[in-house]
C-alpha cells in the first residue's frame, strides 16, 4: 500500500548556469533567467510504501510530517533556492534538480519503516515533476 502526503512551500529562484554565456542563459531559460529572480508556491507530494502495521497504518503521520518539515520545509520554505539551500549548491535550481535535492534531504535522515518511493513537485499548477525513488 502507498500513502501520499502533500506539503507546500514558497521559494524564490533563478535559472542560470556559469557553464553558459549570458546570452545562452537568456535564450535557454527565458523569463526564468531574470537576474532579479522570481518565485513559486511549490506543492510537494511525498509517497511512501509498505505494509499496514498493527496500528492500521503504513506510516505514523506525525513522524512523516516531522521528517518532511525538518528535512525539507525548514530548509526551503521562504528561502532563495540559489543562495540559501546548500543541497542545491552547484546545481541549476530547476524543479528537476530540486526534486533530487528533496530526495537527498529525506533519505539522509530517513528512519521510517515505510519506504520512500516517490517525490513529486508541482512548480505551478501547470508544471509537475515526478521522481521515482
Amino acid at each position, binding site marked *: *500500500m*502507498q*500513502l501520499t*502526503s502533500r506539503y507546500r512551500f514558497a521559494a524564490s529562484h533563478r535559472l542560470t548556469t556559469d557553464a553558459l554565456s549570458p546570452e545562452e542563459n537568456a535564450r535557454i531559460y527565458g523569463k526564468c533567467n531574470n537576474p532579479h529572480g522570481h518565485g513559486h508556491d511549490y506543492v510537494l507530494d511525498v509517497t511512501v510504501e509498505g505494509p*499496514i502495521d498493527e*496500528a492500521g497504518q503504513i506510516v505514523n503521520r506525525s513522524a512523516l510530517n516531522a521528517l518532511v518539515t525538518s528535512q525539507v520545509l525548514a530548509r526551503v520554505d521562504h528561502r532563495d533556492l540559489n543562495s540559501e539551500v546548500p543541497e542545491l549548491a552547484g546545481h541549476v535550481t530547476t524543479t528537476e534538480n530540486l526534486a533530487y535535492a528533496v530526495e537527498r534531504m529525506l533519505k539522509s535522515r530517513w528512519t521510517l519503516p515505510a519506504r520512500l518511493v516517490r517525490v513529486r513537485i508541482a512548480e505551478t499548477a501547470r508544471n509537475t515533476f515526478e521522481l521515482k525513488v
Partner: protein
Amino acid sequence: MLLTRKAEFSASHVCANPALNAEENFAIYGVNANPHGHGHNYVVEVTLEGEPDPVTGMVFDLRELKEIINAEVVDPMDHRFLNGEVPPFDKVVPTTENIAREIWRRLAARIAAPNARLKNVRLYETADLYVDFEGAQGDIGR
C-alpha cells in the same frame, strides 16, 4: 486501459486502539485519537483495468460501477460514524489505510467481468493525504 470513477462520502471516526491508553493512542494517531471523534469528506477513486468489450466498446458499464460503489461504499458509509455503524470498524481502527482496504474488499467481490478487474482504490482523507491500495500484493510491500 484504465478506467476510474470517483465518489464521495462524509463520515466521522475515532482512530484509537481500545487496548491502548490515551497517551499511547495519541502518540500513534495524534489528534485523530480524540475520543469524541471527528470527520472527513472522503473521496474514493476506483480504478479498473481491462480492454473494451468488442461489442459495447466499454471496459465496464459505468452505470453498474456507480451502483456497485453506491451500494458497497457510499450508502453504508456516508454520514455515518464508522466505528459505531460500519463493520468491521467496530473492531478494526478506521485509519485511511484500513478503510481503503475495506473498500477494496467490498468492491473486488462485485467487480467480476471477463475483460476487467479492480486495479486500484485511492482514498483521499483530505485533499492533502491519500492512500493507494492495489489489493493483497500491495499489502505485503509490492
